[in-house]
């Protein structure tokens, strides 16, 4: 009984994820198609010959009405064919996959790093808010939380140039990952700290303390188990945040991710490439949100009975 309820819940979440991806991709397609200018506009400025322009437009299918174009793209999508990029002259699917994996690598590592650093520090500073160590952690995370990725990257880059601690070569991952993770780690630390401090005063922890459970076990197991909910709740937002931040980080550190590609595609009015980027980004976001939901269900049994 309980298992079928859970299975139903998972199927519903998956269906919602598919709907999300489709809406984003279709919206991107329609937006680019309806925006002023198309892939031949750039050509128009360089080549005056109307015949050449007309031929290009015909080759790219830009002379077709919106509904035909959209229909063809949807049919292609069903066959996992995302069309040809007009700026790169390559199939969109392979182009986007490479970049998507790069961005996923960057954001994924940043998420792991932020969690591994932010959560334990949050538990620690929440458990003993008056210790000097906790005060240091709180101060540092307040400062770092005020360094969004664009600033963190520039400052780390400067420090790296001064001291040589981090590699600044293009393709080296340490600097962009740290810059992207730092403000998120600080945010997770703040949230977990508040939640841990509340959990430390809860009746169940008090009861465990009365049974003689040692205080480190109280902090790290009893209190933490019930205080993870707020942090897990923000993971969806964190994924969107990491994505947003990755654009600036990728640009500054020359990391070939989805952000740059999307920007180039939009400016070149590369219809299929923009839609492909939107599709790829939406898949990544939907997948991470799904994973966060499932994790939440696994950790917090209260949610399973609630839904």
């Amino acid at each position, binding site marked *: 009984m309980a298992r079928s309820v859970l299975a139903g819940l998972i199927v519903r979440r998956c269906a919602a994820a598919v709907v999300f991806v489709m809406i984003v991709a279709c919206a991107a397609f329609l937006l680019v198609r309806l925006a002023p200018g198309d892939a031949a506009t750039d050509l128009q400025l360089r080549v005056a010959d109307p015949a050449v322009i007309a031929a290009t437009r015909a080759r790219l299918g830009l002379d077709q009405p919106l509904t035909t174009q959209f229909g063809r793209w949807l049919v292609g999508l069903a066959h996992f064919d995302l069309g040809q990029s007009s700026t790169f002259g390559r199939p969109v699917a392979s182009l986007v996959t490479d970049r998507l994996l790069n961005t996923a690598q960057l954001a994924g590592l940043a998420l792991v790093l932020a969690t591994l650093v932010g959560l334990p520090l949050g538990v620690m500073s929440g458990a003993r808010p008056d210790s000097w160590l906790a005060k240091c952690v709180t101060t540092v995370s307040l400062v770092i939380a005020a360094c969004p990725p664009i600033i963190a990257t520039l400052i780390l880059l400067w420090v790296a*140039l001064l001291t040589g601690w981090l590699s600044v070569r293009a393709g080296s991952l340490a600097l962009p990952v740290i810059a992207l993770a730092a403000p998120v780690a600080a945010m997770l630390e703040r949230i977990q700290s508040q939640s841990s401090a509340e959990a430390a005063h809860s009746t169940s922890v008090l009861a465990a303390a009365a049974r003689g459970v040692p205080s480190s076990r109280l902090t790290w197991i009893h209190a933490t188990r019930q205080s993870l909910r707020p942090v897990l709740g923000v993971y969806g937002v964190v994924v969107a945040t990491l994505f947003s931040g990755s654009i600036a980080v990728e640009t500054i550190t020359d990391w070939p991710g989805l952000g740059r590609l999307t920007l180039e595609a939009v400016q070149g009015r590369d219809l299929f490439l923009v839609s492909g980027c939107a599709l790829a980004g939406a898949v990544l976001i939907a997948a991470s949100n799904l994973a966060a939901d499932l994790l939440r269900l696994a950790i917090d049994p209260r949610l399973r009975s609630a839904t």
Partner: protein
Amino acid sequence: MIGGRRWTVTAGLILTGTIAIAAVAAPFIAPNAPNVLFEDRSFAPPMRLHIIGDGGLSAPFVYRQVLEDRVGGRFRSDVDTPLTLHWFSGGHLVSVPSGQEPLLILGADAIGRDLFSRVLFGAQRSLAVALAGVAGALLIGALVGGFAGSQGGRTESTLMWFSDFLLALPGAYLVLVLRGLLPLVLSNWEVFLLLASLFALTAWPHAARGVRAIISVERARDYAEAARAIGAGPIRMFLHLLPAARGFLALEVVLLVPALLVAEATVSYLGLGFPTASPSWGTLLQDAASVSALSNAPWVLAPAASLFLVTLGLHLVNPERAPRV
């Protein structure tokens, strides 16, 4: 704990207040016009302020900068010609006697413009566009959230589904894609209005969700019941319930302003925001994009430091809630 909290709030208010005043008073505080090119001052370092001269303590003065090596970009201070600072003269807070050297408090940028003045004028533009965006976001958020909360039922779930959908999308992507789809070359005012509206359109769901949660609780309370009983229509109900969300909306300003300042910085850094002739913190950061500028002239990071200080100040004002990055 309470005492400590008060202290940080005061510090935050002073910090943000100072920067806000500096931005508003930029034409008075800035020693130079933001777009004047000073010859031979490419990446000139910040001038050091001296108060001890030959005859002991004296009025604050700076030394004249002399370009020593054009290729290496090295400057030296000409200790024979101290320039005494003039206060409150010629409509400027501080300046050096006219006809002589430019006063470069934070050094110069790549083509010899006064960075301090540009950061001040940039503060004006960046803060204004962020505040306009926040105002728009709160307006839309209060209307949508208030409407959803006071209506309930299917309206509520549809509107909240839509705002959750927007929240799941990365805001920076959304702004950049929408900005990229519109014509690149626009006048200053068009860029300002466009960025402010794009920010409002991407940020409103944050406000809407909170307002909806507050209003749907308020709706069940006695005063709302009473208002409904004497025949208040949907608009009157909305006006009755909305004041309950005042505190939340005030907090939302503190969270959204830093987020939108970063959005402006990102968009302008990528060349899709304000043109360089009208400085904003984002356009100023473009100078920091080159590795050589960053290592030889780290003062190009001044706009990043300003952005950091505003964000820190606003986070200090509101220590209760975790910052939104």
